[in-house]
């Protein structure tokens, strides 16, 4: 009996060594371990073995069965691994085919820069306010210290709307509206569309501004300089030179134009298309809020001081992206829009 078992074992192991592929291994399992398999037949013959030999034969039988099962499982894993290796060796996709990606759109460059500015000012504690596009003369001009029949109004060619109204020429009326409704301290920015009767490669009848102002006790011209220098350096890069030069706006005094050093040529190219060789680019207008504006909104200019500024967004975007015609912003050409 023992010999028969050893013979079966030797045959089975030899068959395993010879076989290829998962199917053949499974065939060997059936032939030796299956219900009618050779080893199973031996089990059936066990009752014919004399009782005193039975335990030894039983032990040997189980040893061989376990061994065969183990060896068959191993062969099976090997066969499967070999089959996988063969499959992998044959599987090749064209990785240069285009991806099936969800289409990606774009945010308008004006909106992007506007958001960037809003983020910067929000970190400085400025809150956002908005006002109407259709304004009255009082908020757009008079309360901002533009007297009627004053040449300062020539600085802003106005669209008039029926009913003695106008399209705001700047976002500064939001200053007046916020101050009318609230008391200092105030730190506010006001983004929005503004309108001027003007059209060429750098002027569009509608464009965008970001207005900002701060009113509190002891706000100084030095603060104006500090806050705007910080902001411009965050937008255009730290180390960007910033200079203030005197200017005139009816609603601020002292007033300043703020220039940044040309980030393209640094003032080294006489024919630089960005700065025109001056080395400087005008970026925004600012100043200390005129006492007359405070009086118009019922603040006491002896109690509070403040600064205000206004930035043309298109101009900033044109500089940042070297865009040469303002009309591109508004012609909706998707080949333009998708570049940002």
């Amino acid at each position, binding site marked *: 009996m023992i010999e028969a078992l050893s013979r079966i074992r030797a045959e089975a192991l030899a068959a395993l060594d010879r076989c290829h592929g998962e199917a053949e291994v499974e065939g060997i399992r059936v032939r030796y371990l299956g219900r009618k398999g050779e080893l199973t037949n031996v089990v059936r013959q066990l009752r014919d073995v004399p009782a005193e030999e039975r335990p030894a034969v039983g032990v040997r039988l189980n040893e061989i069965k376990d061994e065969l099962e183990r060896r068959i499982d191993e062969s099976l894993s090997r066969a499967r691994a070999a089959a996988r290796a063969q499959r992998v060796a044959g599987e090749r996709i064209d990785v240069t085919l285009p991806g099936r990606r969800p289409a990606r*759109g774009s945010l308008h460059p004006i909106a992007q820069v506007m958001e960037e500015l809003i983020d910067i000012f929000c970190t400085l504690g400025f809150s956002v306010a908005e006002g109407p596009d259709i304004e009255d003369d009082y908020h757009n001009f008079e309360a901002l210290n533009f007297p009627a029949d004053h040449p300062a109004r020539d600085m802003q060619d106005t669209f008039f709307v029926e009913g003695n109204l106008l399209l705001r020429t700047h976002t500064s009326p939001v200053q007046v509206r916020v101050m009318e409704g609230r008391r200092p301290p105030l730190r506010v920015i006001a983004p929005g569309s503004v309108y001027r009767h003007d059209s060429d490669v750098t002027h569009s009848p509608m464009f965008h501004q970001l207005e900002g102002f701060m009113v509190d006790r002891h706000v100084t011209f030095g603060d104006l300089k500090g806050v705007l220098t910080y902001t411009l350096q965050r937008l255009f890069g730290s180390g960007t030179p910033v200079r203030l030069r*005197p200017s005139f706006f009816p609603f601020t005094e002292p007033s300043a134009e703020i220039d940044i050093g040309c980030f393209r040529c640094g003032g080294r190219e006489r024919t630089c298309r960005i700065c025109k060789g001056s080395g400087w680019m005008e970026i925004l207008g600012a100043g200390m809020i005129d006492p007359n504006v405070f009086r118009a909104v019922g603040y006491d200019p002896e109690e509070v001081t403040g600064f205000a500024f206004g930035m043309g967004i298109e101009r900033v975007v044109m500089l940042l992206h070297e865009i040469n015609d303002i009309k591109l912003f508004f012609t909706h050409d998707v080949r333009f829009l998708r570049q940002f």
Partner: protein
Amino acid sequence: MRVSLNWLRDFVQLNMDTASLCERLTMGGLEVDAVEEVGAAIASVVVGEIVRMQPHPQADRLTVCQVRIGTGPAVPVVCGATNMKAGDRVAYAPPGTTLPGGRVEEREVRGVRSLGMLCSEAELELSGDASGLMILEREAPLGERIGVCLGIEDTVVDVAVPPNRGDCLSVLGIGRELAALAGLRVRRHRIGVRERGTPAADAIAVRIDDVSGCGRYAARVVRNLRIGASPRWMQQRLVAAGLRPINNVVDVTNYVMIERGQPLHAFDYARLPRPEIVVRRAGASASFETLDGVPRVLDPDDLLITTGEEPVAIAGVMGGAETEVSASTSVVLLESAWFEPSRVRRTARRLGLHSEAAFRFERGVDIGGVPAALDRAAALLERIAGGEVARGMVDAYPRVERPAPVHVRLQRVEEILGAPVTRGDVVRTMKALGASVSAAARGTLTVMPPTYRLDLSREIDVIEEVARVRGYERIAPTMPAVSLDGGVVPERMRRVGGLRRLLAAQGMDEAVILSFASPRLNECFRGIGVKPDPVLIVNPMSRDESQLRLSLVGGLVTAVRQNRSQGVSRVAVFSVGKVFWKDTGPQEGWRLAGVWAGEVPDQGLGGRRPAEFADIKGVVESVLDHLRLTDRTSWKPLLEVPAFHPGKSAAVMLADEFAGVAGCLHPDLEVEFEIEGANWFFELDLEKLLAYLPARAVFRELPRFPAVVRDLAIVTEEQFPSGRVIHFVRQWGHPLVETVVLFDQYVGAPIPPGMKGLAYSISYRAADRTLTDDEVNEAHAELTAALSTALPLELRR
């Protein structure tokens, strides 16, 4: 303001180069926009002498001149002019010179070598004279640049003068300013007027009836004038300033205006109806012909210069044709006056007459400088036009204007500027600007501004001057110490930002659309949530931009067309913006709109297909979902908006209110706007959508027991809206029904023609137990029975 530096040197000694001068002015608030080198175009043209002349051997009309420009040998120049002779000094352009008319080269002229060119005044653009060569004075130094020799080389800087600085609209004004900024001295000139003959007061009387309109009116009479061209130096300076020389009298008035900022007017004395000047309101005077020959309709409030009855000039704006100086004029009445700025401005604007004079009066001239300007003009007329200045000046100055003193607190200066400023700083600055300064109470100064600084009337004006003249760079940047509250972005803006990102993430490009619309666009696209009347612009740039838009859709239609004209047919664009309409007053509100035109965005191979309603509806649904409004919205066919296709468009209803549209344009409009094809639009009323503030989400327990799904297949008419089944199931409200979803729609066999099959899957679930088959079967049977009774459909097995 164009400023000739040669002229400026009459008033200040310029000890700096042009670049530093521009820097000084710019950093002092007078921005230099441009610098022009006068004479640069003819910089290589030099003085030459014609040594010998001989006729050209091959051409009767040409002469061969031997020209020398120094000690070197003479060179041959072939010349067609005839007005020269040997020994003349002429303008010689050597080969290689580029003249306004072209480049001069060495060349052969009919077999004779010619080295360069002899020039006429016209060829040098010095005048229109092309009749012959420009013959120079005998003393003209050989080899010297023509520009230097004639004194025309000059630098002109174009200064942007802000509207509050009328005092800088003159060479003297810029000189004063530069002196203050650069620490220079202003040269003072004595104006010597030689007076002769009958006193002016005997020849003219001046009366100011409208004292608020005319603060001062001074006049002189100049006799025995010979009208002619003014001398070259004066013409050159006028041209440099941007003015056209006319005749000596007019040129003198302009010259003094540019030099001193005081506009002057010269009347032909003989043509004044009466020897009297009365300054008054126009009142009943209806019309008047100005010297440009145009009859002007007057407003009663216009300020006129009259001889009592007859108007002779519109004060500060333009003189009359009748009394204009002409070739036969021999006696003039010179006017130097101060008119009220806003009066001049109103009239000039109404008449559209933006003269140099009006420009200066509007910005305020120096009332104290009125007589000096008059004297300067009279002296010049005597010098260049042979005039005899009548004795005395008639000066009507009813109320002598003195600038009010300004009190300045030194502490306030530092409070505003945030930088240390001493008493000495303020005193020095203000004195440099021509003010007188005296000490008042402790810590306070009293500043008396000069008469020409009308803008210095308040403490803050003085503070600005201190900062400006000393330089903004001397104020150190500081960061304010503030309370930490703030940094608030309005909820609306924050949520719109989320929507814009959502749409961009779905492949749409953001466009910014101008707020304007043409009448036709507003007629076609009447918007949502707006009244039908558009807001009209009184002074539009064009008819296409004469109204404010009622809807964003018109702009998107234009966007599709513009892209198509560029050969781009696949357009997925959205825009957020305001629309405007008229109610009792103008109203404005935010809208979100988009278009999906052509094929859907590329998604790898085989991703191309024309956009369809489901694409745009999906976009809108994602917006509603983002705002958590899905449960509050419903879709129904859009029948009542004529811009949209009645069978292919939907109204988006938000809690039974019309809150948006989605669909395709009416084919008539597609034809009209040239955008035929698959174009799907939507527009949403953000005011309505954003009025719902979504509550913070409240967590729901995750289901612990499995759902059982049963399918429901029906056959119904093709026109039957599939959403009715879903709506019905939700309304029916069985507690075990969890969701109902349409998963298939099909037509064709075995479904009969005109009918369609719809397949829904309904999910049943209980929160507290696993449902048994019997329970689900019972609920499903109830539901199908209810459905087939309530709706026109048949169940399919």
